[in-house]
């Protein structure tokens, strides 16, 4: 993959991480005083929060594979 494309993907991943961070603090993830609907018996904020945390790990995984400085640091 060429360097420009990697840089574009990496920037997109940063943008997604910022969007995910913002979404976390909205009622979409943490509605005040509500714990329904539950998923696998986990209260709403816990399972949505678990999804957000997993998304961050997945974004991190993609970001290391598309990091523009990956080869530079190893050389």
């Amino acid at each position: 993959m060429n360097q420009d494309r990697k840089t574009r993907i990496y920037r997109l991943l940063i943008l997604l991480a910022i969007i995910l961070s913002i979404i976390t603090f909205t009622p979409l993830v943490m509605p005040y005083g509500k714990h329904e609907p539950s998923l696998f018996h986990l209260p709403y904020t816990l399972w949505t929060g678990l999804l957000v945390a997993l998304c961050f790990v997945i974004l991190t995984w993609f970001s290391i594979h598309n990091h523009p400085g990956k080869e530079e640091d190893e050389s």
Partner: protein
Amino acid sequence: MITWVIILGSLFILALVIASVKSYKKDRTLDEYMLAGLNIGPTIGVLTFAAALFSAFIFMGMPDMFRTHGIGAWIFLAISDGAMVFFIIWFGYHIRKKVKSTGFKGVSGFLNDLYGSKLPGYLFFITAFLFLVPYAAIQIRGVSIFFGATFEGILPDWSWALIIVSIMLIYAEVGGFKAIIYSDAIQGTILLIVIWLIGITCIKAFGSVESLFAKVEEIKPALLSVPGPNGLFTVQFLIASFFAIILIPVTQPQLTSRVVAMRDFRSLSRMAVSLGVFAILIIMSTAFIGMYGAVKYPDASSADYLANALLFDQKEVVGALAMVGLFAACLSTTNAQIFALGTELRSLMKGSDKLVLRNTRIGLFVFAIIALVFSTLMSDELALLARTSFTGTSMMAPVVLFGVLSRKKPSRGILILSATGLIILLLSLLHVVPQHIGGMRLDFLLYIYLALGSLGFILFRKSTENN
């Protein structure tokens, strides 16, 4: 249980001795002693990072936080940690790139090189001292009180604190950073195993996760949503905590030095992803332990709840492993913090390697004694005091980030920006400045102040460059 504690405790001490002896080299250089030769691989990396980060705060503080304030604790720590691992890749790449051209002895010395002044290094060191010593002290206090209550009449609380600090000093002095990393790896492994053994017991006590949460809903439904029964987890609190935590690798020197000391970018990357998974696994189990406590021990004191949930409600061997795990957690985190202060002190010193090493070792001893004395004066709220430590050091984020990201020497005005943030925060902790202004949390306002101030410096520099 005592027999198991003695057996497992002896094995743990033996592992520490082996780690120290293996790390000891008579003719090692100062860099080998202080930074393990900047050559940490991904597996040891994730364990040492996790051990330095999680500690007694996760073992005791998080279950108690879930029990008292509810599942908002997941947003408080797990999501912030998830964002932090993403941030580690971004920041890790930039700081490692800079370190290649300047070298690295510690964050304070590194900042002095970048700014061409001694001020940023001293400012960073003072901040680290002010917020790491109390943090180390609360860990020592938490564990010593817990041990004192559990083995009532055998040894007084303060003697447990003395034992922790003595062991910490001996193996740090003998083995250096490498021994600390090995002991972190041992502690990280114990932490993951024991916290899940306890978590599973807590779930089994109710039959299933469903029954556990159904019981919590019956007793205190406010625990299942934000802001929690005491109203702690407001959006402002969680956003301010989010910034305090994602900035940990930037401003807590024990973690910054681990980012720098990773062997290469590939090791750093693998460490970051594994750390994210590790954090989710650990924090999820503390949620179950906390919910268990919310049902079984809703009105108990923190010490009573933890003694029962972590020890007496467990099988003897698991309880004993929890004791050793707690001891190990406290030991490795306080050691990481005290050693980091030693590294920072060393990076500000000039002279021959031998002289600097001797003075650094004296410094380590002094910092450990100060933490020991402080540990007799602290309160018991582990998780919230840990957050205060993260918030305090995060005031230095503009200084570090401008230093690392600027191509030219950064403006010294950045120092004023961070120093004023630090002073206001300290005044609020001393209750001179109110902790809420116009309905807004002060720490939340301070992050806005730092962000806008930093933006101002960026725009000013761009406009002067264009002119």
